[in-house]
């Protein structure tokens, strides 16, 4: 049974010396939803993602995932619970093929890798699962190409694929559209849209058009504080959000 509130942060604080990057942020993500996290540059979105994934330890506060507290768990244990992230700056295995990239991710989530004798290539099921993920993220025809030779947009698709191959309950997507052209963005929106219902997503994104098309709920982060959470309509009408961040960008979207 998956808990109805999949992820909840409780007054999370992260200080870097005198700088408060996360300031008593409380956030909750319901199972099944696409939850967007927006906010101006430097609001602390990526810092928050780092704490959720386990790359940074919060100064105080708690993180609950799927009904248990995970504040102190290392990254790999969170991944095994189903909390997986993707990166804002593409971080794939550039010298490996697309299929090998995804097979490695599949290997992480299925059983021990302290196996020293049997050829890894003999695991047909795992490579088939990896191939299915490649198809899923639209890289079927590029499966055997070296990841480093893919276009930027394709590498971003692989970036999401690496997280997806782990069959996450919650996907933390750190600016999946970063640096994409309009066509590539459109393809990414369609991909994320198609994942709805399959996995819960927490989406950090600057592309407001994409955010308002995808998100069920939106939280706004300003100076490390969550100043508002609600449906896209509520966020659009929220005066505080308008003042702090959305202002002109929103007028473009509604226009």
């Amino acid at each position, binding site marked *: 049974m998956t808990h109805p509130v999949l992820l909840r942060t409780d007054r999370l604080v992260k200080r870097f010396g005198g700088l408060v990057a996360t300031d008593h942020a409380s956030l909750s993500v319901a199972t099944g939803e696409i939850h967007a996290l927006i906010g101006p540059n430097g609001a602390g979105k990526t810092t928050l993602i780092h704490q959720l994934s386990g790359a940074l330890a919060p100064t105080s506060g708690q993180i609950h995932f799927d009904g248990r507290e995970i504040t102190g768990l290392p990254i790999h244990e969170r991944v095994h619970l189903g909390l997986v992230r993707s990166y804002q700056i593409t971080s794939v295995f550039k010298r*490996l093929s697309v*299929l*090998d990239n995804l097979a*490695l991710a599949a290997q992480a989530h299925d059983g021990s890798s302290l196996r020293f004798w049997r050829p890894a290539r003999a695991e047909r099921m795992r490579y088939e699962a990896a191939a299915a993920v490649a198809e899923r993220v639209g890289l079927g025809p590029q499966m055997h190409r*070296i990841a480093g030779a893919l276009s930027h947009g394709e590498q971003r698709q692989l970036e999401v694929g690496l997280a997806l191959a782990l069959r996450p309950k919650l996907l933390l997507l750190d600016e999946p559209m970063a640096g994409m052209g309009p066509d590539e963005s459109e393809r990414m929106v369609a991909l994320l849209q198609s994942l709805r219902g399959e996995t819960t997503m927490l989406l950090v994104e600057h592309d407001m058009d994409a955010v308002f098309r995808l998100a069920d709920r939106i939280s706004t982060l300003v100076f490390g504080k969550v100043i508002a959470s609600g449906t896209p309509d509520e966020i659009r009408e929220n005066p505080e959000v308008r003042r702090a961040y959305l202002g002109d960008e929103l007028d473009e979207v509604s226009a």
Partner: protein
Amino acid sequence: MTTPSKNDTAPSILDHGLRLRWSVPLLIALVLLPAIATALDEGFYIGVASRILIFALAATSLNLILGFGGMVSFGHAAFVGVGAYTVGILMQDGVDSAWIAWPAAFVLGGLFAFVIGLVSLRTQGVYFIMITLAFAQMLFYLMVSLKAYGGEDGLSLASRSQLGLGLDLADDAQFYYVVLALFVLAFVAIQRLLNARFGHVLQGIRENEVRMAAIGFPVYRYKLVAFTIAGAIAGLAGALLANQGSFVSPSLLQWSQSGMLMIMVILGGVGHLFGGLAGAVAFLLIEEVLVAYTIHWQFGLGAVLLAVVLLAPNGLMSLWRRRARK
């Protein structure tokens, strides 16, 4: 459709075949070597060949962590030294059975690597290089100061280890065959390991350590396992080296020895299955040839190393690969 290995772009860097087409003839040549050397009345070269194979074993174990795991260890000679001293000390205390001393060298090499790795692997990059070097130097000075085990002068072994089975290791040819058998065994084990799940994880860590953690691998643990295995194999190489020269001294653990192993790996091919072997053969043959002409043989070696780094930055094995592709 989904067949993983062969593809139309490039051979995967994860696949490490034994290349039987030329490794089998090479093995046959190695098996025939003592007979040929004896026939040519050059029995001396059997000892040289043993020494080369022992260093090839040590260099291959270093390549496992350096070339395949991206861990640039500058203290690998420490584990060779631990293995060598295990044999030396046991023999001084009257234990001359290879069946006890060699496994002990293997286990102790692994144990020292485990403990040193436990600390060192928490660091990255140049700090890792420095801390492994520091640990190796600590062991070096420890052995220098242990007068009971020869101190600076080292230990002379009364004999080679006793293997039983009707074999007499004092005979250079028989010792050579035992070394060859162990080398082949370790080499095949490493080849299996690299192509197994563990090898893929290890190479994944070399390629992108941050991402490996993000997809759920406890990276530190896997690195520690690899480091321990490499230390154990180096320990075994040390046991053989002690037997080969019938002598153990602190110089085996010195940083220059670690550097030599590193040069062998770089010379042969970092992250190439045959890199350690090719590097050890090249290094020690160059030394053997040049020493006959000049005591400044290291000058010639330096020139060769420079040429390799400039002409084949990925080591001698990359020349082979490039030619094979044409």
